[in-house]
């Protein structure tokens, strides 16, 4: 056990797996000497050399495209995209190829590729450094989407992603890269993909969230618990496939659901969750579902960004709303 922050936990997972799997290579912009702009790949090039930790030209589409070719050939490439906002340049490769190679070739070729990207806002970064468009990838059949919410979770989920035989988009909430430290087991931990985590238990409402938004959700829940309101808190961990069972079980118990994400409201992953609840657990609902989400505007530049992201206050209001309905 050592106390690590999220970026260190990611780094540790990468070291661990690179050691075990000689077919694993890391490619991306500045992942080598520089160790990644967030230092997630720090030190790897020194231990594993330039042929396994590869600085590439500035070409997001080719980073993903060549990684697909590598994966088909039998390697386990991990592609780092510097910020989620630069993944759009690789959208054609992701949607048309990474997600379809197994189907297209009827299993003859597979794509065991992990795409890592810092995502989300709140770090006072320039334009397009605060994207959270995970819904694009959740809506793409053939991709898995994983979002860790703490350092230990990051290690366990990343290791599972690295072992997955299919393409995984692994989104690291940059806001909490360094904000939280926790004990992370030194040894191997594998958190299975597709299983949500019940972070807290209560029977008055279900709070459903992922990534960095878990933390204001926890704060809101603590404040509410001081007022005697206890809630289930579900950290989804994997957005695709979605662990509907855990969600439904909780909502059937509590009858109230609040979904919290920082992505834009409309057609965000929260919409899917709300839709599923309204389909599968309608009769349990004693209050309308409330989504707490980013506005349907782009994330503004740093000076205004705090007005964009929903926080603890909005989550409390939402809990009060479902309770008082």
């Amino acid at each position: 056990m050592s106390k690590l922050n999220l970026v260190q936990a990611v780094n540790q997972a990468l070291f661990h797996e690179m050691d075990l799997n000689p077919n694993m290579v890391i490619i991306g912009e500045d992942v080598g000497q520089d160790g990644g702009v967030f230092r997630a790949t720090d030190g790897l090039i020194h231990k594993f050399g330039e042929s396994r930790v590869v600085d590439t030209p500035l070409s997001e589409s080719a980073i993903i495209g060549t990684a697909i070719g590598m994966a088909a050939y039998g390697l386990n490439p991990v592609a780092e995209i510097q910020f989620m906002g630069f993944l759009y340049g690789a959208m054609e490769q992701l949607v048309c190829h990474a997600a379809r190679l197994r189907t297209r070739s009827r299993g003859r070729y597979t794509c065991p590729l992990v795409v890592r990207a810092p995502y989300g806002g709140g770090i006072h970064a320039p334009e397009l450094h605060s994207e959270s468009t995970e819904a694009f990838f959740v809506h793409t059949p053939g991709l898995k989407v994983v979002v860790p919410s703490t350092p230990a979770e990051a290690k366990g989920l990343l290791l599972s992603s690295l072992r997955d035989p299919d393409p995984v988009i692994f989104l690291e909430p940059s806001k909490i890269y360094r904000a939280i430290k926790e004990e992370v087991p030194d040894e191997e931990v594998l958190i299975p993909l597709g299983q949500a985590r019940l972070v807290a238990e209560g029977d008055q409402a279900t709070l459903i969230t992922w990534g960095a938004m878990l933390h204001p959700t926890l704060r809101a829940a603590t404040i509410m618990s001081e007022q005697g309101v206890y809630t289930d808190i579900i950290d989804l961990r994997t957005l695709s496939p979605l662990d509907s069972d855990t969600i439904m079980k909780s909502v059937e118990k509590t009858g109230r659901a609040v979904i919290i994400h920082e992505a834009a409201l409309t057609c965000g992953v929260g919409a899917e969750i709300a839709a599923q609840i309204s389909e599968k657990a309608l009769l349990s609902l004693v209050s309308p579902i409330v989504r707490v989400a980013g506005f349907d505007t782009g994330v503004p530049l740093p000076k205004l960004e705090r007005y964009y992201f929903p926080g603890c206050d909005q989550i409390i209001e939402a809990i009060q709303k479902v309770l008082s309905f």
Partner: protein
Amino acid sequence: MPKRILEEFKVEWFQLLDECGTLDSSLLSPLLSPSESITKKEIQGFYESMVLIRSFDEKALKLQRMGRLGTYASICGQEAIQVGCAAALRSSDWFFPAFRESGLSILRGLPMKTLYQYWSGDERGSVVPEAHNDFPIAIPVGTHIPHAVGAAWAALYKKDKIAVLATFGDGATSKGDFHEGLNFAGVFSLPVVFLCQNNQWAISIPVSRQTAASTIAQKAIAYGFPGIQVDGNDVIAVYLVVKQALERARRGEGPTFIECLTYRLNDHTTADDASRYRSEEEVTLWQEKDPMRRLRRYLEKTYDWSTSHEEALQQEVNARISTAVEEYESVGPDDPLQMFDSLFETLPKDLLEQRAELKRRIEKEQEGARH
């Protein structure tokens, strides 16, 4: 120094067999190592392959017109490139086609019936036999180029002594992925050969509207590796240039870009009508340069190739194609559940439910049919 020339480049043209079927053998020897030669058998083999793939193509067009095949992209006029490449490739090499490489795929060992299946919209037509490392057809133009680059990279990493060939059209050279992929290949000096089948049209867009560069070959200059323009209707030139480039790649000397100048003699696909945008005269002009006609003239002049040889060959080919068509048409229907079964290695729960729903629908339909 205030003003000076930093770099000079030239783009070369290469042809051995001219339009009249005359071979310039002076160019042959420097291209072959002392122990090598091109034998009569090989050259005759080229011709046989050309007849085979052209006949495959003609049959495909016929089947389409009769409603027995879906939209099909003809390779007519581009046979020399495909035969030359197939002859130059080793079976251990990897090949990444665009969608106008039916001939090359057949010669690599993809059963003709499988290709007919593909063009009938049957996904089983994309399953490449284990013996060859060829990628299935990918529709988005140019986007398969980085895959070839990635495979070459992996081969280098694994120290496999193989080369990778990626083929694409002139239109593909305008796509960002062409640029990003070739640039990667240059930077990492990868064992990959890029071959552009410049058939001078991308649907209705002539190559002059595709690029202001006077050759496509010169695009290699941007990536720091050799580029050459070859007469794409000269199978011998294509064969030799591709072979050398693949050997260069296998020796670890990096990528090569080859532009093969040719012409798309038919419509873009069976869904297209080329008369809307190009002249009869242009097509006629290029029919004169037909790669098969040229090689046949050479065979006639050099090896006494006769009408009876020709007829025997054509008969044999026709028989093979008939068999392929029969095989293709006797294939049973595909399993719709494959939609799910080849999506992930392990299907997650929500998709298992969707799969069950599809199964239910199919059973209901069968039920309905039975009554």
